[in-house]
């Protein structure tokens, strides 16, 4: 005769499947183990549950994975990753976040380029920019060469002075962002050929061209090349 009340027995009966799969809490498992030797019906129920478990596992084993499943998943994963990257790039472009593009560019450069490759890229950029700057100066005429730096640096969309800059290898993106913020400047284009970026100060900036140029050149850890931009 079971010492359990009807209610206690029903409660244990409900919990038994999880005793069989080993996830029942210790207290309930102990109550059940104490009741089993004196309750043949409960013991019978447990034996049936073990049969159910065995049959369920055997049934599951019958369902094998389709042969093509993994290959199809890997192809789907590659396509998804490419699609996500494209979407992210478009999103960045739509926001006009050139700073984000700069970050990506700096990251890729640091990851991919050897010091030698960086040096070669820098020389190539210098040559390219020298030509570009020469064209700008020649277009602007003698006044530009006579210290009219704000004129030489050109007038951007906002009317502020524009410079072509090449960021120093390893330049920290957050330091660049801080510099731009503190000086009321922003990146308006890039990366241009040679890894140059176009940087523009606010039209309301009271500093002259030479002063602004000096501000940029005073940050060699951020800018390795500063030229008037058009």
């Amino acid at each position, binding site marked *: 005769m079971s010492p359990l009340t009807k209610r206690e027995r029903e409660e244990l009966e409900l919990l038994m499947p999880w005793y069989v799969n080993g996830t029942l809490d210790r207290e309930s498992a102990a109550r059940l183990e104490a009741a089993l030797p004196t309750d043949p019906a409960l013991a*019978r129920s447990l034996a*049936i549950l073990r049969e159910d478990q065995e049959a*369920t596992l055997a*049934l599951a084993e019958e*369902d094998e994975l*389709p042969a093509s*499943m993994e290959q199809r998943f890997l192809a789907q994963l590659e396509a998804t990753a490419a699609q996500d990257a494209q979407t992210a790039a478009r999103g960045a472009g739509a926001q006009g976040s050139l700073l984000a593009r700069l970050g990506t560019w700096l990251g890729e450069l640091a990851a991919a380029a050897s010091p030698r490759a960086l040096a070669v890229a820098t020389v190539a950029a210098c040559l390219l920019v020298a030509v570009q700057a020469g064209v700008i100066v020649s277009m602007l005429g003698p006044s530009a060469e006579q210290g009219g730096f704000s004129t030489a640096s050109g007038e951007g969309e906002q009317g502020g002075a524009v410079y072509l800059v090449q960021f120093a290898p390893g330049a920290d993106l957050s330091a660049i962002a801080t510099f731009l913020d503190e000086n009321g400047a922003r990146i308006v284009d890039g990366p241009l050929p040679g890894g140059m970026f176009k940087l523009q100060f606010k039209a309301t900036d009271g500093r002259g061209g030479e002063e602004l140029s000096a501000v940029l050149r005073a940050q060699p850890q951020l800018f390795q090349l500063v030229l008037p931009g058009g």
Partner: protein
Amino acid sequence: MQSAETVEDEILLARIAGGDKEAMHVFYRRHRLAVYRFVLRFVRDEATAEDLANDVFIDVYRQAGRFEGRSKASTWLLGMARFKALSERRRRKDTVDADEALNEFEDDADTPEVSVQKQDKALALRRCIEKLSPEHREVIDLTFYHGKSIKEISEIAGIPENTVKTRAFHARRQLSAMMEKMGIDRGWP
């Protein structure tokens, strides 16, 4: 205390959240069989189950950052799989309730195939489990195949813990009724 498997899953998910495709592949290989078998129970079609299971893992790739570690990764995964499988089943309007399953069972109870099964109790029991309603089959599978606790099944199926317990009980009763119709008395309930 978390098992080593749980910790490994969490590390993999953190790497997946960072876009690590290799980690995604490892996670996939660990769980693909369980997810495939789980969704197959709902849709009862291998090709559909394959597509759904793969889609679940693509969702994992995109949503790994949302995993908060409040439950096991496998529980989170099965919850996602269930949602997808049910959506597909609703789309196909392929619902079967317990009575229908029993009727279907009765319809073919006298076929030669069933007569053969009568000779093998274990085989008959498997046949009966296959005939359970999807809701009953789900709780039986989650308990005995996936090894989930009452609380975890409650999370996966989105039902109260007491419903998990009573649903399992009714599934067992249903099994006994089916077996009895095959001439096998289980002596329970």
